């Protein structure tokens, strides 16, 4: 089941990111705060932490595919999201054994992951000249609000973790029996 549901849910998140600015509060924008919805990445990190085993890399595969989709559909520079999402998901995948998993540890991973990814994306865009704000302005007007907003999103979708663990076990049993 997970084979169908996971890509579908990721696709849904990808599409909702595109209309997110319609229902995110408008007032935040007038105060120069910019929120980038990295919801796809948040869910990819959940997959990396709860669904993948140490020797499976489904989350990285999904990160590459859906990162590429974001690049094509929402930006006109290819490869940036693809590379940064895949790299970040891979790093978190490697880190997940360090701490015992609970909501706050996952929140910590999400914060680390999103900061890394967003920072990487910003750096690349700065180099190719798609944007030109200073580092300080970036940190205060973009990184901080983005972290808060995506952290809130994590609380929203965190209950899915039971389902992910269940799917993960089912897949494991199937792999063993065949």
């Amino acid at each position: 089941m997970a084979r169908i549901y996971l890509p579908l849910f990721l696709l849904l998140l990808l599409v909702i990111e595109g209309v997110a600015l319609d229902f995110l509060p408008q007032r935040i924008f007038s105060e120069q705060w910019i929120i980038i919805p990295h919801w796809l990445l948040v869910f990819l990190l959940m997959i990396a932490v709860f669904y993948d085993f140490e020797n499976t890399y489904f989350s990285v595969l999904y990160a590459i595919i859906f990162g590429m989709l974001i690049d094509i559909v929402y930006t006109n520079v290819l490869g940036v999201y693809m590379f940064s999402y895949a790299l970040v998901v891979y790093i978190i995948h490697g880190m997940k054994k360090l701490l015992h998993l609970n909501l706050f540890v996952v929140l910590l991973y999400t914060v680390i992951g999103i900061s890394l990814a967003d920072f990487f994306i910003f750096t690349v865009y700065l180099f190719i000249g798609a944007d030109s704000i200073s580092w300080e302005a970036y940190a205060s007007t973009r990184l901080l609000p983005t972290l808060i907003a995506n952290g809130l999103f994590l609380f929203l979708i965190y209950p899915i973790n039971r389902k992910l663990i269940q799917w993960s076990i089912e897949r494991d049993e199937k792999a063993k029996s065949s």
Partner: protein
Amino acid sequence: MSFFRRKRLFIILVGFIILVGLIGFSLRDRDELSTFEQFLHDTVGWVQNTIQVPVQFTTSLIANIEEMRNVYDENQILKARLSQYKNVLYEVQELRQENEELQTTLNKTESITDFEPIQASVIARSPEQWFKMVKINKGKQHGVEPNMAVITGDGMIGKIQSRSQFTSTVLLLNGFDRSNRISVNIDLTDDEEDMTGFIVGYDEDEEALLLELNQSQTDVSEGELVFSSGMGGVFPKGLKIGTIKEVTPGKYGLTQVAYVEPSADLYNMNHVIVVDRSAAMPEDNGNTQAGEEE
């Protein structure tokens, strides 16, 4: 273990090389999206179209409730204006008729003001806010071409950046730079002649478009209207762009630079019109004239 580490590093480096290659590929001046990209745009666009309906319904419902509070006041003002408009309407009809008659006597059937509207809905906005882009649900199959102007009822909002078969991407005015300038006229109220200039970009701090004026002697006051002049050959004449906010001397004091506030709301729009300029492009014009001479 060290073998695996080396392999891991190797993969990351290869990934990095691919990243640089892809960025280089996409930063070239591309006229056309590749078939693969067009396919993905359309497929995702289809899903976006379906999702957008309930989202827009909910958001517009909330906006409607907020607007209802002001309905009474607005109604009073509108009623007062309505009587004025009746007079203006009569005048406009007279002028239009006269204009048509004059044009037929001149044997001039098409003008750079004419355009064919293509109605479209906004289905998504780039969450990555460096890219001032929105996606609309009309594409090549509906007659959309790159570089067409996109307007709302309030004025111009941008131009078509790329299009696939059933969807297209619009570059908003606040994402414009020197490579896509707009030739504009400024409607001076106390002068017969219009003033000309170029929109050369967008100033993030001022939140206004940068307008380089062609003449520096004339005084331009705040609040003057800025229209597209149709001289660039891409956009039709007479699209409203904005109003002058401030005029300052340019970098070297030789030119004047004005800040123009866009008249359309670039952050909140659902329905847009893609403007298909009817008058032939300059190069086509040249061909037909050459043909006639023969």
